[in-house]
């Protein structure tokens, strides 16, 4: 299962079309609507989280683009704030990609941004708010 957060911009002619319904039923993508602003005869937009097999997600996004929906990726990343980190290593256990790592024998913790998949598993583990989610659009 893959997960993707995207912004969908709907042109005015699609506002009264059941696009999300078709995305779910025809493309088999699970859609979680995080924010939506739809006004008749204007561009509407929606922030959604899409869940499904990777290939499904790609097909689903292609389907949307074909209909004329503009798809933007939501630049979401997890930030590690070194100045707040106390190097306890609590976050190492849940991190699936070793983006959060420890250097031995000094036991100092570091963060490799490239490896982070923004799975958010470390967020509720850090007691010091040293890992946080940064959402930019």
């Amino acid at each position, binding site marked *: 299962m893959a997960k993707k957060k995207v912004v969908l911009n709907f042109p005015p002619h699609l506002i009264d079309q059941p696009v999300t319904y078709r995305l779910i039923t025809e493309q088999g993508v699970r859609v979680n609507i995080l924010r939506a602003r739809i006004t008749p005869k204007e561009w509407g937009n929606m922030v959604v989280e899409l869940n499904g097999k990777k290939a499904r997600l790609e097909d689903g996004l292609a389907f949307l683009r074909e209909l004329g929906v503009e798809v933007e990726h939501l630049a979401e990343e997890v930030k590690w704030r070194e100045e707040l980190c106390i*190097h*306890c290593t*609590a976050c190492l*256990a849940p991190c699936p990609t070793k983006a959060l790592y420890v250097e*031995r024998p000094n*036991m100092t913790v570091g963060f490799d941004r490239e490896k982070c998949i923004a799975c958010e598993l470390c967020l509720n*583990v850090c*007691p*010091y708010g040293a890992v946080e989610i940064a959402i930019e659009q």
Partner: protein
Amino acid sequence: MTRTIQEINEKIKQGRAVVCTAEEIIQVVKEKGVRQAAATVDVVTTGTFAPMCSSGAYFNVGHALPRMKMGGGRVTLNEVPAYAGFAAVDILMGATAIPDDDPRNKVFPGKFAYGGGHVIEDLVAGKDVRLTAQAYGTDCYPRKTLDTWIRLADLNEAVLFNMRNAYQNYNVAVNLSDKVIYTYMGVLQPRMRNANYCTAGQLSPLLNDPYYRTIGVGTRIFLGDGEGFVVSHGTQHNPGVRRSEKGLPQVPAGTLAVTGDLKKMSPRWLRGASFTGYGVTLTLGLGIPIPILDEETLEFAAVTDAEITAPVVDYSAAYPHGKPEILGEVTVAQLKSGEISVNGKRVVTAGLSSYARAREVALILKSWIEAGTFFLTEPVAPLPSADSGYKFKLLPERPWDGLQEAV
């Protein structure tokens, strides 16, 4: 070889004292042997930086005009309730206190974003903190309400007073159940997917002086980057537990009650901490110098992570129900390697106590002693040690039936 604390202090004054951290001494002993190391080294410094829930601070906030008796009333600091059962303007803030309107675990697991530990950190950082108080009013203290900003510099006294810190050894927590559990040992994944530990190991103060030969009542220590003192043994002190050949307790054992002037501390060493689903606490830097009085004190202070073992405990059932069973024993060296083996299963480890920052505490303390600004103390009285018979007990519950008096 023997040496007295007086002699060591004389050397500190002259800038001639030889000081090593509890980590550095391991190498010195490896190279020179115990005998020569003891002859050369005067002091070994230890350190720890870890969540310590039984921490708190008391404040004398000064008298407002007209005067007000907060004692017996209600007081909050940044909406976190403080204890006010004292005289007019003395209040106590506990590390784990949380605002009345914090949702706690109603939406599980609760975030516990702000509490007593954070209030203490904010005060030490010099931030303005909101003090509210309601009192019943008396002839001598007529005022009934107060809502004002305060800050550390304006308080008469601001004192960290911790009834239990610096646990000598600690459990390794795992979760044998099928669902995630949220504990004071962090988030524990089901079916033993992680093991969380909390010890500074070879740097830990009480593991470097396992029988409390040098650490006692009145010992001057590093506390939150300021000077502190050991008040006595801490609550739940339990020195009589089983120990290794080298005298190291194999389960949680001794504890310390400590105190120090908050005005001299730094927020880098007092951090409010939010444990998801559990609550708020204070993470605190504490370090103790160990005078090398003879070869035995040095041998103890040269303890290594490979020699320290900790029990693995299931926090889904055994711990909450107070069952003594343990799943095995592992060394701190194994815990720090990132993986341990429990009943043949490989389990990823994660820490709660910062080894990197513990080392920093030991280095700072070393630099103070080398600079001649920190002197060692003779204990005023000893702490109850392994042979004292002093014990930690569970609560003998005698439920109140509402009719007869308890016998």
